[in-house]
């Protein structure tokens, strides 16, 4: 069936709520309105007001309440209307949800999913464009996923709901309606922690996730015949599929990491360091990174375009790395 990335997320929630009565959704305007982006459209009609809950504007409460519900065996999906507002619930995530199991010596788990629209490219300005994955990347106890396709958006969310740990699920708002894909009618899951190979190649590896997967694949296609590019879509950032990364980099000898989140302190920094340390002898060039500029997500079109990685910048970076 043909679905958009957004519909895939809606289906995942609907299927999981139908499968397990302990799955529920809480967030601002998720019920009557079906969400600011219509991601939860129809769910309150189908599952009722007790399970699809319109919450006050209080992200700290939404997340903390989710933890309380989880300890009682519920499996709440907690929506941030825009993912930027996850900052307002930061303490509940890093000190409450992430440590819950550890501090109780394994007596309990924290099966919550925190999801919401992240990412730039829609002139959202400083507070409606952020990619907060690196804020959480160094926090133990959290899992982080970032789907690039409708297929993965559905399969990863279903896995996240069934996972017993807190999962941060960063959906990309730029992809919501821009991607339409044929996905299976029958139920499927995409396991957390497994990358996907989006293009096969032998000259160099592009490691990416989220919205930048698409221009990376396009660049690989455009360069075919000139440079043979392998593209790995990480899908999960924690746990990270190191096996997929290392196998590919061993094969090609060159790695370029591309992501939309800022360069400094980004996920790419960690991956680059690990490649440098563990695969040094396999490398034929420097490990390179391409990411958003180290500034805020500015509003005006020329500023935003300058900040973000795009097809042109990816193509140039691939060419540069290939020359080594």
């Amino acid at each position, binding site marked *: 069936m043909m679905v958009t990335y957004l519909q895939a997320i809606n289906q995942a929630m609907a299927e999981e709520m139908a499968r397990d009565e302990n799955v529920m959704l809480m967030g*601002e*305007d998720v019920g*009557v*309105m079906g969400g*600011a982006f219509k991601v939860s459209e129809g769910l309150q009609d189908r599952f009722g007001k007790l399970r699809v809950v*319109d*919450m*006050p*504007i*209080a*992200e*700290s*409460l939404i997340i903390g309440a989710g933890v309380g519900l989880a300890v009682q065996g519920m499996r709440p999906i907690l929506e941030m*209307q*825009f993912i*930027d*507002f996850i*900052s*307002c619930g930061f303490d509940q995530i890093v000190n409450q949800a992430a440590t819950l199991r550890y501090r109780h010596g394994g007596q309990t788990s924290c099966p919550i999913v925190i999801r919401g629209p992240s990412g730039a490219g829609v*002139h*959202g*300005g*400083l*507070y*409606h464009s952020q990619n907060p994955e690196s804020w959480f990347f160094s926090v133990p106890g959290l899992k982080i996923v970032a789907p690039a396709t409708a297929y993965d958006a559905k399969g990863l969310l279903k896995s996240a709901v069934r996972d017993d740990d807190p999962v941060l699920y960063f959906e990309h708002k730029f992809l919501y309606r821009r991607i339409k894909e044929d996905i299976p009618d029958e139920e499927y899951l995409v396991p957390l922690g497994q990358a996907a190979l989006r293009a096969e190649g032998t000259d160099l590896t592009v490691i990416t996730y989220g919205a930048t997967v698409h221009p990376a694949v396009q660049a690989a296609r455009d360069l075919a015949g000139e440079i043979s590019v392998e593209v790995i879509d990480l899908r999960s950032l924690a746990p990270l599929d190191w096996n997929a990364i290392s196998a590919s980099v061993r094969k090609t000898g060159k790695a370029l990491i591309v992501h939309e989140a800022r*360069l*400094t302190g980004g996920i790419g920094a960690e991956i680059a360091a690990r490649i440098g340390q563990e695969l040094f002898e396999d490398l034929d060039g420097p490990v390179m990174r391409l990411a958003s*500029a*180290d*500034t*805020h997500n*500015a*509003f*005006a*079109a*020329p*500023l*935003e*375009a*300058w*900040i973000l990685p795009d097809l042109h910048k990816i193509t140039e970076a691939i060419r540069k790395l290939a020359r080594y």
Partner: protein
Amino acid sequence: MNEQTERDLYYRMVLVREFEGRVSALDKQGKLAGGVYSGRGQEAASIGVCHGLRVDDWIFPLHRDMGAVLAKGADPNRLMAQIFGRRDGFSKGKDSYLHGGDLPHGIFGATSMLGSTLPVATGMAYKFRMKNEDRVAVAFFGEGASSRGDVHEAMNFAGVHKLPVIYVCENNFYAYSTPNELQFAVENVADRAAGYGFKGEVASGNDLHAVLQAMQKATDRARRGEGPTFIELKTYRYHGHSEHDRAAYRTDEELVTWESRDPIELWEHYLDKRKYDLQAIKAETLARAQQVVADAVAFAEASPEPEGPEAMDDLYATPIPGGSPA
């Protein structure tokens, strides 16, 4: 109030309505990127709150307070350039709408994190108190934002130290689609002020007289060192939450009822009762407001877009060598 003041207040409300109306129209024409949050219907609240403030007092507007920004003295041309994301906007294109602020006029730039300016306003008021300055800080927020912890934390501290800060809650009954009964269990948000140890007042936000009166009392109290006031203004936004929202969660009847209490029409009614020449005032005011708006649009359209590398400007007071922490 003398005639001049009454006519000036009228002009200000009309200017806000024309300004916001034009912004909505530009948005519909696809000429603006980003969200547009119209405060149409809430003009008396914006104008009334700012009317008695001095340039050295401060306001902390929320996303719907374009009117307050204009009333506090922001240059309409620069404000329009800000909305267009142009270089002459207060944030030079870094963000749009009310995120720029106009500091020389005592207008703090909003962020999108609802309620998060209340602690800032409170800190500012602490400084006024500490240095014995008879200035006030006025923080606007919606009834929806009142659910956030930051809001509670700020008011609690202001109560403890009797700070010269005024918390203005514009209660328009919906936070996006969420009605008040899902937001809080008290009837008036202002009822909560008691819990912080200061006075809460409820007034009609559509009645300019009521707003002016409530603010007068609150600013007097603040300047006399008697501490904060919570003012809740009951009002209504005619448009959806943003221009993309068709507001299907509310009824047409409800809208019609509120439109019959339109703040600008109520004021016209009042001017009429004062036996001024209302028709002449209306025509003259509208023409004047429309000219200001037309000039602002022309100014904004002529203002250059920022260039890409300017994205690195204004990040630090003392630039980091190489332009990034890396």
